[in-house]
């Protein structure tokens, strides 16, 4: 049985009775158990429940009863998205044994279409990081080379999809957390427009910029998931009503006659040589398909790293205040403690990156500094968005490599936070401005490491974005993951 089929193929084959859901899931878990010691994508497995659901769906299919659109498709879920009855840890000691009493809205929607959750996957603690090394449960490894980081923070999502431990994964993207692992693991990852997908049940890190986004091996699978998880939610007031439906339709519309802007600041100096040549190759491919490529300058992105980390740290310091181990959390009695002493002690269990960002956040929000940091960072957002609006008056899509560098070795940059922050330069623009962006696998380096190309569209233009991504995907044929 081929576990590497796409979501579209899975649905078609189950529908046609060519494969049984039970068998597919059983083999999926077999593979998970076999390769997990090398990859470590999962924090929690959901095998028992998943197998019962699989049998149940097979029964329904046989009885010709109504079955949801996903027909038992195995998905993994980043462990900062709440699934009722499952541990939701955020890869943190602070939520080590927190079992969510409710489903995130995206989970409710996926369950109602008969998706099967195979387990919860690893991330940087509270999604803060871009390598998945800052997990309380240890790092996830890149399936293309297990010495290397899988990107992050949704590294478990990227690795589990790339290594065929599931067909689809849900990640979250605050500053590139879906696109970075997509690029490093050679899979597709979408950060939707802010407000397109409900955040209810996504554990907040930087709530003004983050979105839940799907990771899959194929662009068409991303479209299928987006059709299900997008839409206004009465539990999330930041969602907007958007009438676009049928993201999966007309994906092959092509790019002929389309204008694509190459972002000057993200394709020039500072790029890894192989990343740079892959980008040029992608540009020529699109041109050969009839697209017109022009250079677009967004000089406001010069300030994006400091603006992004100011906002993210400020919001993180507030969002993570609730973890005081009093209402839920790990076992540690508070008898005999004074309040502040107790919470300061238990909160010292946050990892170094989370602690760093909370310290930074506390600093930038301190009395007297609001104007200097937070307010200025907000101005950068407006400035970037206004330049992006101008750009989209001239072009349909924007393009740049997702990551300016190739995947690097585990441990290589873990002690240099600023250097890591700077590698987010190409992804954070979409978060700061709220626009959608997608990473498409495009090439494998000479050293056998994946390179992804990022496309960006204006707000709520996911349909156009997916059509561009599909064209790019079809323009190249990549080798299979070695694991």
């Amino acid at each position, binding site marked *: 049985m081929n576990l590497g089929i796409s979501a579209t193929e899975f649905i078609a084959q189950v529908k046609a009775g060519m494969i049984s859901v039970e068998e597919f899931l059983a083999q999926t878990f077999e593979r998970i158990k076999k390769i997990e010691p090398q990859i470590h994508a999962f924090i929690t497995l959901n095998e028992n429940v998943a197998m019962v659901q699989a049998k149940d769906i097979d029964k329904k299919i046989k009885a010709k009863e109504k079955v949801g659109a996903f027909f038992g498709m195995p998905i993994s879920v980043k462990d900062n998205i709440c699934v009722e009855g499952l541990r939701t840890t955020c890869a943190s000691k602070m939520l080590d044994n927190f079992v969510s009493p409710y489903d995130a809205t995206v989970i409710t929607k996926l369950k109602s279409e008969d998706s099967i959750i195979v387990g919860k996957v690893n991330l940087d603690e509270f999604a803060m990081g871009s390598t998945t090394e800052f997990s309380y449960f240890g790092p996830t490894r890149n399936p293309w080379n297990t010495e290397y980081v899988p990107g992050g923070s949704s590294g478990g999502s990227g690795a589990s999809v790339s290594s065929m431990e599931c067909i689809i994964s849900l990640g979250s993207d605050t500053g590139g957390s879906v696109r970075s692992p997509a690029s490093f693991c050679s899979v597709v990852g979408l950060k939707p427009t802010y407000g397109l997908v409900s955040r209810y049940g996504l554990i907040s890190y930087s709530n003004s910029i983050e979105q839940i986004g799907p990771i899959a091996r194929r662009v068409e699978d991303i479209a299928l998931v987006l059709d299900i998880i997008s839409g206004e939610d009465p539990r999330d007031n930041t969602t907007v009503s958007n009438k676009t439906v049928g993201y999966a339709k007309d994906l092959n519309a092509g790019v002929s006659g389309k204008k694509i802007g190459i972002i000057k600041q993200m394709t020039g100096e500072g790029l890894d040589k192989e990343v740079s040549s892959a980008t040029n190759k992608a540009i020529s491919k699109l041109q050969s398909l009839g697209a017109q490529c022009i250079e677009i300058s967004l000089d406001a992105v010069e300030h994006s790293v400091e603006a992004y980390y100011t906002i993210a740290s400020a919001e993180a310091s507030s969002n993570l205040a609730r973890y005081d181990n009093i209402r839920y959390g790990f076992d540690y009695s508070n008898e005999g403690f004074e309040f502040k002493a107790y919470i300061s002690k238990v909160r010292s269990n946050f990892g170094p990156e989370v602690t760093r960002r*909370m310290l*930074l956040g506390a600093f930038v929000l301190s009395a007297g500094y609001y104007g200097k940091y937070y307010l200025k960072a907000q101005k950068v957002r407006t400035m970037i968005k206004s330049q992006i609006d101008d750009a989209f008056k001239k072009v349909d899509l924007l393009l740049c490599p997702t990551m300016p560098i190739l995947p690097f070795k585990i441990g290589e940059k873990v002690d240099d936070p600023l250097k890591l922050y700077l590698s987010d330069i190409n992804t954070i623009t979409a978060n700061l401005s709220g626009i959608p962006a997608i990473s498409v696998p495009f090439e494998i380096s000479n050293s056998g490491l994946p390179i992804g190309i990022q496309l960006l569209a204006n707000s709520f233009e996911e349909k156009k974005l997916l059509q561009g991504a599909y064209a790019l995907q079809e323009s190249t044929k990549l080798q299979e993951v070695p694991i």
Partner: protein
Amino acid sequence: MIDRKEIEHLSDLIKVELKDPEKYIKQVEQILNYFDRLDAVDFDSEETLRKEVKIDGLRDDKYVPFQDNGKPLIDKLKKDPNNYIRAPKMV
């Protein structure tokens, strides 16, 4: 700018006991220096990217009890036999 005293003040604000304050002093200072690049931002606009809603877009005032398979939420939290949450006292 970031010294021992400042890092202790910050750690008190976020209520995290720091095991290795020296390490954080250096890193926080380095990153904040980088943040100072924001000083060069010269862009004046009252606009924000935040969503705006009319008052009718807000939630209707309706009582709907939280249901979790008929079980009260408190059963999922750390509680004492009388259903209270036990917290250390603020002195």
